[in-house]
């Protein structure tokens, strides 16, 4: 398995999702506030969510949040080469695991990205449909805040995930491609991403009313 993007996926997705625990369903901010008064306005929270969404849907993140039996790679999000499959634990299959190529760190001399525990996000954390279309901002937000899908993460756990998870951190330091050029980065820095996540969580993890 190779190239670009699966890292962040699983874990970050999970975290994010968790953040929304407090609520349950559809729309905007309200629920988180029911457990703990939101310290940030819902408008600010929704704006922050859009920033978070811009990162989650970047290839460095979403390539491993697929709804299919395989990861994607590259900025064009093509199907992962080499007949790589998801496997029962999202780590490939015996003889062709993620670790068959992806090591604990980026291998810039050979162009293979790496980080601790490289794996595909579970299907409950898919951020695409089965035709590889990225979920809308509303749908992804709702999925991410559904504790039955996000690994039962609450807001603080999602924030922690975005701050510490190795695969999330990898997305912001994705290393070099085989031709020596740098892999593209998410639209925010890691610090900005964490800050936006915090603002969104403080606002009660609001989700957009419209797709």
């Amino acid at each position, binding site marked *: *398995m*190779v190239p670009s993007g699966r890292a962040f996926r699983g874990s970050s997705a999970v975290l994010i999702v968790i953040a929304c625990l407090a609520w349950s369903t559809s729309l905007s901010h309200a629920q988180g506030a029911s457990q703990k008064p939101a310290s940030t306005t819902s408008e600010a929270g929704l704006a922050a969510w859009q920033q978070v969404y811009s990162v989650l849907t970047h290839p460095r993140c979403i390539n491993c949040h697929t709804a299919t039996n395989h990861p994607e790679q590259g900025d064009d999000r093509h199907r992962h*080469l*080499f*007949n*790589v*499959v998801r*496997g029962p634990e999202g780590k490939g*299959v*015996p*003889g*062709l*695991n993620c*670790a*068959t*190529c992806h*090591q*604990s*760190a980026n*291998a*810039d*001399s*050979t*162009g*293979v990205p*790496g980080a601790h525990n490289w794996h595909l996000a579970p299907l409950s954390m898919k951020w695409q449909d089965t035709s590889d279309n990225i979920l809308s901002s509303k749908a992804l937000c709702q999925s991410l805040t559904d504790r039955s899908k996000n690994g039962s993460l609450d807001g603080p756990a999602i924030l922690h995930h975005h701050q510490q998870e190795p695969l999330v951190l990898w997305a912001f330091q994705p290393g070099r491609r*085989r031709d020596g050029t740098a892999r593209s980065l998410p639209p925010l820095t890691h610090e900005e991403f964490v800050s936006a996540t915090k603002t969104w969580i403080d606002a009660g993890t609001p989700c957009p009313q419209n797709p």
Partner: protein
Amino acid sequence: MQTYKLTVNGQTREVSVDPGTPLLWVLREDLKMTGTKYGCGISACGACTVHLAGVATRSCVVPVSLVGDRPIVTIEGIGEDRVGRAVQDAWVSEDVVQCGYCQSGQIMSAVALLKSRQKPSDEDIEESMGGNICRCGTYVRIRKAIKTAAQQLA
């Protein structure tokens, strides 16, 4: 250049190489263990497969600096393992090999599969061996040999 101590087939070997050097070239050029083959250099064909701490690994894309203290087993050493021996015997009895270039990697992946699946299905074999390409098209015999080895190990 940096010096690394590697455990290869149970023996400690010391090499002084650039940290970015792929393990494949350390094995072939520095240790003169040429059983592991260079096919594509981008992990696309599987000819360079070795075991790193028991995990089938494409040695052409793993810099020696990332090997750490994980033991390495190559095609030269896999016959010392019970499963490895059974796979090699099955490869012979089923006359799998044609040109043979990819077969080191095929065997290493097959051993990894059989260590996890005692009785692999056709689907298991297709998924696990899907990253090992054979230009001679020996896939049918490879599948048969894996099943033969599984029966011998049962």
